[in-house]
Each structure stands twice: as structure tokens, then as C-alpha cells.
């Protein structure tokens, strides 16, 4: 009964949604006077940022990203708050089987490389499809790999929140520096450099590196909290 109700509700919803979506001229330039052309030309031309998505994420819509970083920060805080068990420390991870030696050895070898890959991804956020979030996620998965393989692997909470906070403060401070430099919040105040050089795009790489650190630390913290969550 409930299923039928839900299915019919979803059917109506889907039909109405698709009806409208079919009116979109798919894959064509259909915007009236959209903002995208401005972004596509300004980013390489004026900002020296090859990856326009990054220019948007970090600069044009950098405010979103600041919020997004905050969301992630809040998610970590929320998760540890929700799972926090008061004065008792987190329990030791009780693991039925230790991981295989092969996986352990492999993880040990791969871990630094994965961290390096993460760093590569967020350092090149303005040049390649990478970016702070992607890089951060990769770094966190590196830690995930270690946590999977070694049940006694410890991540320092203090270090994590230190990195997290410092990265967040960097982001916000760079924003405020733009503001104090006589511009507006998050406004670029550094030379933009040559397109496709590593050092280009003004404050964008700085922010993206901070984001990378922050996301990496936050996701690691999330994973760590979740893995240690055992009754």
C-alpha cells in the first residue's frame, strides 16, 4: 500500500520534472546572457588560471567554497559530537582478523605515494582537473588505507585539529587580506603569473592548498572517528 502510494507520488514527480527538463535544449548554448562566458574568458585572460572550474570554485564563487569547507568542518565536528561518549576515551578497535601481510606491506609502500599524489592534485588545482577537495580526499584515503591495514595505527587528534584549524584560518585570513588590501573579501592581491605555470593565479593556489590540507585532515578525522566507533 505504502509502496504503491510512494511509487505513484514518485511517478507524478518524475513526469513533471522530466516534462520540464525535456524543454531544455540539451547540449546547446541556451543561456540568455549567462555568466559562463565571462568566467571562461576572464579566468585565463585576467587571472592566469588555466582551470576555469578552479577559478570559479576558489575565486568567483570562493565564498561558496568557504562555506563548503565549513560544511565539512561542521560534519566532522557534528560526527564527533554525535558519537562522543563523554569522559571515556574512544574504545580500542576490536578487529576479528588482522589484515593480511601482503596488504600491510603494500599499504606501507603506497601510503607516501598516495599522500604525494594528493599533494600533487591540490597543488595543481588551478592547472589540472584536481583541486583542494580532490587532493584532500586522496590524502584521506591514504590514511584510510593505513587504518585499514594496521588496526593499531593512530592518528593524532591534536595534529588533525591543528592542521584543520590552521588551514581554515589560512583560507579565511587570505580572504580578509584581500579585504584589508583595500579590495573586497577574497579578492586577489598577488600577481597572477603566467598561464599554466605552477606559480600563477595569485591567491588561488594558496587557498586551494589550504583547502587540501583542511579537507584531508577533516576526512581523516571523520574516518578515524567512524572506525573507532565500536561498542
Amino acid at each position, binding site marked *: 500500500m505504502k509502496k504503491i502510494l510512494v511509487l505513484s507520488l514518485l511517478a507524478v514527480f*518524475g513526469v513533471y520534472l522530466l516534462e520540464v527538463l525535456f524543454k531544455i535544449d540539451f547540449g*546547446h548554448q541556451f543561456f540568455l546572457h549567462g555568466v559562463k*562566458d565571462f568566467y*571562461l574568458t576572464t579566468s585565463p585572460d585576467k587571472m592566469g588560471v588555466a582551470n576555469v572550474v578552479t577559478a*570559479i570554485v576558489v575565486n568567483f564563487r570562493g565564498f*561558496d567554497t568557504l562555506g563548503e569547507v565549513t560544511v565539512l568542518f561542521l*560534519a*566532522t565536528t557534528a560526527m564527533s559530537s554525535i558519537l562522543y561518549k563523554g569522559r571515556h576515551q574512544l574504545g580500542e578497535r576490536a578487529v576479528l582478523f588482522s589484515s593480511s601481510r601482503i596488504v600491510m606491506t603494500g599499504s606501507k609502500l603506497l601510503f607516501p605515494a598516495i599522500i604525494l599524489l594528493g599533494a600533487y592534485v591540490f597543488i595543481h588545482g588551478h592547472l589540472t582537473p584536481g583541486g583542494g577537495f580532490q587532493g584532500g580526499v586522496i590524502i584521506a584515503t591514504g590514511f584510510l588505507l593505513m587504518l585499514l591495514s594496521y588496526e593499531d595505527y593512530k592518528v593524532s587528534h591534536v595534529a588533525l585539529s591543528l592542521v584543520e584549524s590552521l588551514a581554515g584560518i589560512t583560507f579565511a585570513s587570505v580572504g580578509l587580506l584581500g579585504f584589508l588590501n583595500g579590495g573586497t573579501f577574497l579578492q586577489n592581491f598577488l600577481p597572477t603569473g603566467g598561464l599554466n605555470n605552477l606559480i600563477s593565479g595569485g591567491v588561488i593556489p594558496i587557498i586551494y592548498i589550504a583547502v587540501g590540507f583542511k579537507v584531508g585532515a577533516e576526512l581523516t578525522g571523520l574516518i578515524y572517528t567512524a572506525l573507532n566507533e565500536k561498542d
Partner: protein
Amino acid sequence: MEFKLFDLSIVEYAFFITAVLIILIGLYGALVKKTLIKIVIGLSVLDAGINLLLISVGYVKSGTAPIFSPALIKDMPLTLENIKKLSEGMVDPVPQALVLTAIVIGFGVTAVALSLVIRLYRHHHTLNIDEIKNLKW
């Protein structure tokens, strides 16, 4: 080497249909499934569908990623006209930026949801949502 994959017009609206289907499947999971975990999965699927929809809105036929990489620019002088010409072959970067944000937000919500599920399981010793309704009326 000239190479053209195939003309996407055959599947013009496949993206939208797929996205909407994914949204509906996710919604179905969230609205009907009894297990908390499945509900959370439903919500994640829902998120994925929306992100797909968002990204397809920005698609431009045979457009490429909006990245002015050296290989793309080749030896063209970087004048405004050239940039404009290049940018015509690029997909809309805005939805991509939005999707990035939406994904991260969806991830955060999922993390919170899962930790709530853990709490609920600890408290009620069940994952059945029909048995978790101490709060009502």
C-alpha cells in the same frame, strides 16, 4: 588524427532521464526502505542523481573540460579572441563548480546521517525505522 567518438544527439536526453531515474530510485529507497542504512543510501543515491542532473545541464555538445592546458593552447598567442574561440568548445564550468560543492555537502550530510544511525542503533538496538518512534504526536 581526426577522431570523433559518436554523435551524442542519439541519446540527447539520456542524461536527464538517467538522472531523474536515479533521483527517483534514491527517493524510493529513502521513503520505503525500513533499514536506516538503506534510507541513508537512498539519500546518497538521490544526491548522486541531482549531481548528475546538475552536471548535464552544463553540458555543451562535444565540449571539452574548461581547462586551458598547454596542449589545448598549443602555440596560439593568448589573445582574447583565441580564448573566446577556445572557450566555445568548452562545457559550462559553473555547474561543475556547483557540483563540487554539492558533492562535498552531500558527503558531509551522509557522514552525519551515518553517525546518527550508529547512535540510534546503540540506543534502540534496531535499525528498523518503524521501531524508532518514541517521539510522536
